[in-house]
């Protein structure tokens, strides 16, 4: 029965709902249908895993916080910061 349920959605439509699915933003009905589909369909299962992996990799990109600013600007900012500091 859950097998039938899984075929209520086509792969071509499922791939557009992956982010909604991962965010928990779909309605209960859609969510259950997608879970059932993923149990049956290797292609979609792999696709969803790859979207997860993509998010994971994005989360490991360096933030470049320190390299954000050219040296001269960083010096100006430090000067501004020191000037602001209560003595």
């Amino acid at each position, binding site marked *: 029965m859950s097998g039938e349920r899984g075929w209520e959605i086509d792969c071509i439509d499922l*791939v557009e709902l992956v982010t909604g699915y991962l965010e928990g933003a779909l309605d209960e009905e859609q969510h259950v249908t997608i879970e059932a589909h993923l149990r049956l369909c290797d292609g979609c299962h792999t696709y969803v895993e790859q979207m997860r992996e993509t998010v994971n990799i994005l989360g490991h990109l360096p933030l470049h916080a320190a390299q954000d600013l050219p040296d001269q600007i960083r010096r100006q*900012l430090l000067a501004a910061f020191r000037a602001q500091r209560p003595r």
Partner: protein
Amino acid sequence: MLRVARGFVSTEASAQEVVQDTWLGVIRGLASFEERSSLRTWVFRILVNIAKTRGVREQRTTPLSCLAADEGTGPTVDPSRFRDLHDPEWPGHWTPAGTPRRWDTDPEAGILRGEIRDLVSAAVEALPPRQKEVVVLRDVQGLDSEEVCELLRMTAGNQRVLLHRGRAKVRAALEVYYSREIA
């Protein structure tokens, strides 16, 4: 921050000035910062406000209501990877050749391989501006969806569309990389 700023303004130099002004704003405002939002959200709000003001001056901001076509519509996966809708057996399902192949990720590597990092950075840089903002704030900076909606003043639905489209493009870039590696 530079990456976020770059989404709003037209040049790298302009984006650097936005980041600089943001820090100045942070320094000036720090005394009045109330802990109603996280410090990070607060800093990004200043950044986005400055970047937007500047972007308007540079005539480059796009109102959300008219997202460029490549930002908001169309399939995120090449339709030729699916059987057509009149297929007698499996309409709308992956074709054998179109089915995603598992990636040979290396869990033991632990830290991200430099190659992959560069590839994903480049893919993010290549995203259309609105998608880039959302992907960077959500996935790279790790803000939650509520924070991002508030910062960029967009609905949860719009944010999700942009996030989905941006992630799908980054995934596609990784797919090309991994399939080349197998071949």
